[in-house]
């Protein structure tokens, strides 16, 4: 199962090497489109696929206690990686929408997890004692704040380059240097029988081959009564117009078929497949973009981007 998800034809990882995409960011839809790329803009187009399965596993050496492996790197290499990391971490760069959205989605995660785990919402590190996995962590935009909030974070991504960037950036700060990053997949973690209090996968599910199987893996990673938080883009006309028609057909930034609009999930579908994976969705919120302030806020409008919080409930089922 894991290998199936990792094979090239199944992994819908989309690369946009094009920053023109954000040249007209006045519209929310543009901003949403910007959510799609997740390689740095300097890398050549188009599909840069993750390393073979074997490779990804071997690469987990980049994880915990990375300092020795870092010191074995050449200065020049460090500088090179640092400059790439700047792009994932450039809040004005291609990943701007993720950066801008971050406080909003973290506010959702903070409030739902604090309530579920009975944590003190006034604490600066409310997630102290919680093990959280960030599936599809990319450059670590979400993993780092989670670590600052006290969580013991494991970040995984299928793209090795992302993991390297994430590692490098996290090492800049003592608190985030504790994050464990691995180039692997949710499925492999399941095979390794890893368990987490909370499983988080933001803006990832629309890129996986089989969302239902993916959700089952997420559920399998959660401890009984653990939490799951998933966010994605709705299958709306808006997203169709921007991500598919414009980017793939008219502008040809992306190879045709990179995005499969049909693979976007509606909130109802997500609730359903999570339910089948023994995750009951308890709360859902939409993100709305205000072009005037350039900020996102939580709302009950789930027509474009939405985030769901659920709890693992297999123990009730199995009784």
């Amino acid at each position, binding site marked *: 199962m894991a290998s199936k998800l990792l094979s090239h034809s199944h992994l819908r990882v989309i690369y946009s090497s094009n920053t023109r995409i954000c040249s007209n960011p006045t519209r929310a839809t543009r901003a949403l489109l910007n959510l799609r790329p997740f390689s740095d803009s300097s890398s050549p187009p188009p599909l840069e696929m993750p390393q073979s399965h074997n490779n990804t596993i071997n690469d987990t050496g980049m994880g915990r206690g990375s300092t020795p492996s870092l010191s074995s790197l050449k200065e020049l290499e460090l500088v090179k990686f640092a400059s790439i990391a700047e792009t994932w971490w450039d*809040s004005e760069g291609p990943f701007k929408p993720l950066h801008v959205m*971050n*406080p909003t989605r*973290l506010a959702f995660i*903070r409030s739902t997890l604090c309530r579920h785990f009975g944590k003190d919402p006034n*604490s*600066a590190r409310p997630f102290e004692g919680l093990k959280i996995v960030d599936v599809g962590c990319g450059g670590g935009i979400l993993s780092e704040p989670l670590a*600052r*909030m006290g969580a013991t974070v494991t970040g995984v991504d299928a793209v090795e380059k992302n993991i390297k960037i994430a590692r490098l950036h996290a090492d*800049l700060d003592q608190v985030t240097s504790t994050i464990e990053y691995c180039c692997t997949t949710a499925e492999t973690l399941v095979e390794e029988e890893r368990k987490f209090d909370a499983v988080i996968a933001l803006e990832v599910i629309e890129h996986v081959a089989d969302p239902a199987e993916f959700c089952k893996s997420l559920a399998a990673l959660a401890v009984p009564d653990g939490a799951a938080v998933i966010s994605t883009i709705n299958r709306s006309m808006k997203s169709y117009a921007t991500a598919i028609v414009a980017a793939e057909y008219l502008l040809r930034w992306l190879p045709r078929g990179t995005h499969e609009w049909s693979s976007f999930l509606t909130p109802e579908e997500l609730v359903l497949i999570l339910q089948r994976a023994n995750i009951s969705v308890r709360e859902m919120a939409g993100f709305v973009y205000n072009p005037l302030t350039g900020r996102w806020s939580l709302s009950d409008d789930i027509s474009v981007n939405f985030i769901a919080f659920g709890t693992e409930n297999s123990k009730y089922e199995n009784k």
Partner: protein
Amino acid sequence: MNRVIVRKLAANVARLRVQHEFFCTDAAARVSGSNRSHEHEEKHDFSNNIQQYDIAIVGGGMVGMALACSLASMPLTKHLKVAIIDSNPALGSKVCFKKEDPPDPRVSTVTPATISLFKDVGAWQYIERHRHAYFDKMQVWDYTGLGYTSYNARDINKEILGCVVENKVLHGSLLSCIENKDFQKTIYPSRLTSMTLHPRSSPMGMDSTSSRTPSSSLRHLAKLELTDGNSLYAKLVVGADGGKSRVRELAGFKTTGWNYSQNAVICTVEHTDGNQCAWQRFLPAGPIALLPMGDNFSNIVWTMNPKESMDRKSMSEDDFVKDVNNALDYGYGPRPKSSLLGNEDMFSWLRGYVTLSANECFEVPPKVVKLASERMVFPLSLMHANDYASKHVVLIGDAAHTVHPLAGQGVNLGFGDAFALSRVIAEGIAVGTDIGEVSLLKKYEAERKLANITMMAILDGFQKAYSVDFGPLNILRAAALHGAHYISPLKRSIISYASGEQRLPLFS
């Protein structure tokens, strides 16, 4: 509780724990002897004497201390490790105020908004133990005798319009407030000399005067070097170092502004009776303000050209008192009558809005009988930093803006900055944001720039209108004053804006 470490020597070895017993009225010097102090100290000695902080506040003046106090009082920020850098001895030594001493001439008029912020962080109770003077009335008039206006707290359904407090009491209260909180702060009695904000962008090894290259986690921090040879690292550097801010200069923030070529002469004076009203009279060279200070004392802030200010500083006390009385009453022109140009009907169309205080007659300010302090002279200028924030650095208080002391807004704007910044930091921490991140700091900038620029424009406009002496203009501005006296809705917005309520007259 009281964990204060004062750094004295470059060697980072000799360290003094100073028990701040700021006020004599406080219980006799407590001995900390707490083990926690020790723990805290030990933590500082980690890895190769590298001093690392979450926040370094450069400048422990009123605004810098307000920030520290606010950080210390919020659940999400009180865990932060904060360094305060300032060579001002008031931060390190035991200072005593006696209530019998005549008040210091350096005072601030704090607005109701500032008072409620102080109450929120628990600092106002310390002010209340010392000299402070609330006032609920303010009279503004000018030397032409053509108009006057009086503001009353009742007009805006408030108890008070403001409170006059000595700067040393404001500063000391904030210090005491922090002392009594469980807060990790380290005071460096020194001054900032240089700052490296993005050490990563310089080739590695460049800044390694030390034998060891900084570990990678240090490369993410701002590095500060002090006059005493100490250096420290921080995620966020706050420039609270006043109008001539070194932080602003080192961060490369440009400023806009000008000197007014005016000086302010300030001093404390005594009356035979108490004064409960704030008075301001516009004279050809600038305004003179008489602020109540409690007991029979008042504070004078008198704006004039630099030459006059030197004369008035050096003249005999008796002559000076005579000049002050002249300036506050009959000098330069007659007392205003209660009507403008003998014809109140000019405002008949506004009759419906006449407020209570409009019916109050012009009053003569209390006579000054004695000078009660030295006379001090300050040059006045208007300055605004084009940016308040970039990666790892942010400006607050006079470092970001200086205004004409006309309406006593200077430090209130600074307090507004300090409390806004600590709130933004708390909001960032709530969602795990790196506190040096520019997107977070820009939120603070956006919020405060609007408030500060608006107030600066209002004050600058006022000062311009009153610093020229053209006959016809005098009548116009008297009309404006007189008008302001009667046009209640406008007047209400003026007072509420001047008293720190954030709503703009224009936008409300």
